[in-house]
């Protein structure tokens, strides 16, 4: 009986916590939204040099890893496809398979996952540390709206950086497929490229880029949210950082599934 009562009490406490956390999350998201609204209404007050700084941090500095992973992704995909397609003598379809899966799906997804690990986690850690150091309190008492500094420049930088990284990722992914096509299957380079250009319509490219913008927004919002919600000590910042990556990847996959479904219904 005692255990039963305790279980009920635990469920109650859990419910209250859930309600409070949801409430806090919604209020932080509301603040982000408000900051965005103010930024759009008053674009002169955006701190552009900070945007550039984050653009360099999240875009330029991620380029090598993105290029390498996407190139290998293309090679792996091409290799697996070649094994199967060779049996039917339809070697040239390697270009279709690699091109389409990279551009529509894997390019944006890999870049998003890399960005969650590099950018999202650093956002959470930076903002969390600023909280511990009372820097955010200091902003508030200076009459400065913190999200104008913390959220908006990061959002703008990421919305620029992630799609650009995705374009690079796509190019190198296709190059990976090309290498397999050329050296494993002996398809002439020009033939492979022509085939790729044939199947990769602008609509598919757009689909991938739209996804990457949505991912950029998700990564930034989750990274900043976890930073703002982080505990007041090193332990709290560590947890916030981990959580930003886990939550980030979770929502990226969920939103990818939704978008892929919507695009396929939309007939793309």
């Amino acid at each position, binding site marked *: 009986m005692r255990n039963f009562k305790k279980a009920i009490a635990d469920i109650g406490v859990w419910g209250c916590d859930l309600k409070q956390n949801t409430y806090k999350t919604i209020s932080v998201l509301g603040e982000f939204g408000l900051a965005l609204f103010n930024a759009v209404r008053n674009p002169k007050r955006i701190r552009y040099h900070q945007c550039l700084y984050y653009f360099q941090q999240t875009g330029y500095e991620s380029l090598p890893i993105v290029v390498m992973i996407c190139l290998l992704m293309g090679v792996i995909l091409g290799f697996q496809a070649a094994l199967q397609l060779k049996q039917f003598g339809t070697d040239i379809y390697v270009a279709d398979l690699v091109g389409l899966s990279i551009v529509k799906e894997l390019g944006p997804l890999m870049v998003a996952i890399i960005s969650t690990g590099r950018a999202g986690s650093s956002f959470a850690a930076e903002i969390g*540390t600023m909280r511990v150091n*009372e*820097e955010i*309190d*200091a902003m508030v*008492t200076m009459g*400065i709206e913190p999200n104008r500094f913390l959220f908006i420049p990061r959002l703008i930088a990421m919305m620029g950086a992630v799609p650009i990284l995705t374009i690079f990722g796509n190019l190198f992914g296709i190059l990976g497929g090309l290498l397999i096509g050329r050296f494993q299957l002996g398809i002439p380079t020009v033939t492979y490229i022509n085939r790729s250009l044939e199947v990769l319509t602008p609509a598919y490219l757009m689909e991938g880029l739209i996804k990457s913008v949505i991912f950029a927004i998700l990564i930034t919002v989750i990274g900043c949210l976890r930073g703002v919600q982080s505990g007041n000590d090193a332990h709290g910042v560590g947890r916030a950082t981990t959580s930003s990556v886990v939550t980030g990847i979770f929502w990226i996959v969920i939103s990818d599934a939704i978008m892929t479904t919507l695009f396929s219904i939309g007939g793309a």
Partner: protein
Amino acid sequence: MSVIEVKNLTIGYGNNIILQDLNFEIKQNEITFLMGGSGCGKTTLLKHLIGLYPPMCGEIKIFNQSIVNNNINAKRKLMQSFGVLYQSGALFGSMTLAENINLVLEECSTLNAIQRRERAIEKLSLVDLEEFADYYPSDISGGMKKRAGLARAMALNPKLLFFDEPQAGLDPISSAGLDNLLKNLQRETGATFVIVSHELDSIFAIADTVFMLDKDSKSIIAQGNPHDLKRNPPNKWVNQFMHRDPTRK
């Protein structure tokens, strides 16, 4: 004249009351210390006074304006009328000392870039840091960070300054130096200083008035001039605290 008026203030976290039904006034042009044992709620009280947390109930007025019940813009204006020195300095790590001060001026004043730089150097020289204007906070010591934080808090020439444990973590000489600095700044500017601290040496050296908070009764148990309180302690706790002697009756 009082700069801060507190009426029936109750503060805490969640359902946990830390201090209850406080009523006090902080006088203009004085150095006031909020003191008390560890964990009695000094920092908590300070964060409520500067409007970072909403109180459970009661009213706080600064310069006759409420920081509790006021719209967000009025509150922001009111916050800009005072400066705060946080315990660790709370300098923005991505900016140099001069840029830290520049940011405040950029956001809250109409000065142009050259005037802002001049003002930043002027404030840094008040705390003897003008040579470090272009250093990043990570490249200076803890005591220097505090002084830089003080320079930033004074950027807009506020008439009211709050300090959270300014002497904590400083060696005796730096600590005494900081006390002198605070005293001189206060005399020169005629500003009101509210300092959270339990450093007895500093309290006796520079405090005009002290408020002593107590954890058990969750209220203020003594107030007045620290030397008077030491001579005529109103109760045992004050006696022990002021003499650094837990055996006193």
